């Protein structure tokens, strides 16, 4: 598990390194979220082959990425946590979604296979609040009918580091549960009432795989790669959904992206019968009036290429491309807001 992640990261790093060697001044510089790093690297590699322009992306975390773009050491910043229109206006930046992913609850219970277990938002919140302590709790039984669950204590696993995944997961819980919304709220790091903390998506995945009767949450790609047992969810429309690319895209399609609000959008708990309730987007931040106009224009060219040609590559790595209708909105925003000329 660890190995595969490490190898992938290493390969990606090598890819970025090779990209940076050949090109002269034409490299695009960016920094931020770790979640989209594999797909950005893959895009960078393909883009370099096609156009000769390289991308150097430092995968240092959303918070650090925002700091780097603020200090203008990079051309674009990347964050899993959307920034508010007020902040962006203050900083003179624009923001748009680049790619999406789904978050799934993963469990390790003997005899329970992927999709066997069904949960809804308020039950999930009560588990992470420590109010539901055992798997045979009536609240879980009510959602699962005939599925036999043990009377064992639930071992909760959450992220120990600040993370966009936690931000989007806790955002969903605070929408689904009033108690979570008032007591815990949502953020990259929250005051977890129960459970153990693990570092990174791979840490949570490994911990759940190790611990009997545990539950955690990870990006969908990690659940799939590690063959973890995910839970199906009851969505906002009251329908049971499985975590599939189609369900994530349905959530994204139902979302109302508003360029006037800098595409500020948290994709959790979207309406629609098919929508997966824990979908999340990762965003790009750039200056409206960049210091280096040529570099800014190069970056936009790359993002345009990624939207038009990168969709299939994204799906290969279990990411969800931004729908075409939203891409049109983003591109018209680029034309009107970013002054590259």
């Amino acid at each position: 598990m660890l190995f595969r992640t490490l190898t992938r990261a290493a390969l990606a790093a090598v890819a970025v390194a090779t990209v940076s060697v050949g090109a002269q001044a034409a490299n695009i510089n960016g920094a931020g979220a770790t979640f989209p790093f594999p797909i950005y690297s893959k895009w960078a590699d393909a883009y370099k082959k096609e156009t000769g322009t390289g991308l150097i992306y430092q995968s240092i975390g959303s918070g650090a990425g925002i700091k780097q773009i603020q200090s203008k050491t990079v051309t674009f910043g990347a964050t899993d946590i959307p920034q508010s229109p007020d902040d962006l206006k203050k900083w003179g930046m624009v923001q748009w979604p680049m790619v999406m992913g789904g978050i799934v609850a993963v469990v390790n219970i003997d005899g329970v296979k992927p999709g066997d277990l069904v949960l809804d938002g308020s039950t999930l919140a009560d588990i992470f609040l420590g109010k539901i302590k055992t798997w045979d709790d009536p609240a879980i039984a009510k959602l699962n009918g005939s599925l036999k669950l043990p009377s064992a204590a639930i071992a909760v696993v959450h992220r120990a580091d600040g993370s966009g995944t936690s931000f989007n997961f806790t955002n969903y819980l605070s929408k689904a549960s009033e108690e979570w919304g008032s007591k815990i709220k949502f953020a990259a790091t929250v005051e977890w009432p129960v459970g153990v903390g693990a570092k990174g998506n791979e840490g949570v995945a490994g911990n759940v795989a190790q611990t009997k009767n545990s539950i955690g949450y990870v990006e969908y790609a990690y659940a799939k790669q590690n063959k973890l047992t995910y839970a199906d969810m009851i969505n906002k429309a009251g329908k049971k959904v499985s975590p599939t690319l189609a369900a994530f895209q349905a959530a994204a399609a139902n979302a109302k992206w508003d360029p006037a609000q800098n595409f500020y959008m948290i994709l959790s708990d979207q309406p629609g019968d098919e929508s997966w309730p824990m979908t999340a987007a990762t965003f790009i931040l750039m200056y409206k009036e960049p210091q280096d106009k040529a570099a800014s224009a190069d970056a936009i060219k790359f993002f345009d290429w990624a939207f038009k040609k990168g969709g299939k590559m994204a799906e290969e790595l279990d990411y969800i491309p931004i729908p075409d209708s939203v891409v049109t909105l983003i591109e018209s925003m680029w034309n009107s807001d970013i002054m590259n000329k």
Partner: protein
Amino acid sequence: MTDMAIEDAVAQTMVASRARALNAFKFGDATFYWMTRIAAICVLLILGGIIAYLIVGAWPALTTYGLNFLSTQRWAPELDPPVLGGLAPIYGTLLTSAIALLIAVPVGLGVAVFLTELCPQWLRRPIGIAVELLAGIPSIIYGMWGFFVLGPALANTIEPAIVSFFARVPVLNVIFAGPTSNQSIFNASLILAIMVLPFITAIARDVFLTVPPVLKEAAYGVGCTTWEVVRSVMVPYTRVGLIGGIMLALGRALGETMAVTFVIGNAFRVQASIFAPGTTISAAIASEFAESADLYQSALILLGLLLFVLTFFVLAAARLMLMQLRRRAGG
């Protein structure tokens, strides 16, 4: 005449070249003196720089929370303003180190006594080398072993047995309470104990070997048992070295980061049960620093400063104890 002149000239050149050679040495000496001096000053500058950085970085949190930082258990960086207290990591750091020493000191001394007193000659080298190799294992390996092997074994078999054994004993049923967790204070303490064991054993063995055989033989001669020789002759004779070894072990246990982060559970809670997850100062900094900012980051740096102060006091206390012991022993 000519011969003498030649000899003179030769002598003079020899004197001159000797002086030159000596001068060259002088230059070398001075260079060496300054290089070592600069190296020594660099150490002081680096230490001073680190302390200055920690104090400057921790200042916002220090002025915001003051002494309350030490007594607050809540760790809620998401609130505005954030509520941050260091009680849980400080408690976890002290508790894990204390339990680790409680286990490692008797075991470590026992191994050392066995190696020096009881062990057959042919077995001494293999066991000695094995203990020394234990000290060379990188901490991340201990962390992985604790995570994959020790944690599940403790949580699924050993800890439940202890919990049910003490279920009716007051006080102990609170300290050893379920539900058990793969990552816990106890798991971290055990890993730390194994990590510091070689330090204690290696130093204890070395100092035990310095006990003059005549002392031990005299004690055996008047009919002492091995236990009595160890307790009344060897330990008093070597206490300075033993305490030094234990303090070195404590210093390592307090600051250990990677292995502990793997197995402690990173939960900011103070719980009476040692089978519950917790956190330590270094584990908290390692897992949260990258994504922190402003006051939150300052609070993490303050935790680092506290760890620095804590380790400093442990080492200072060890020095003081050693000095007093030496004075009492008459030099």
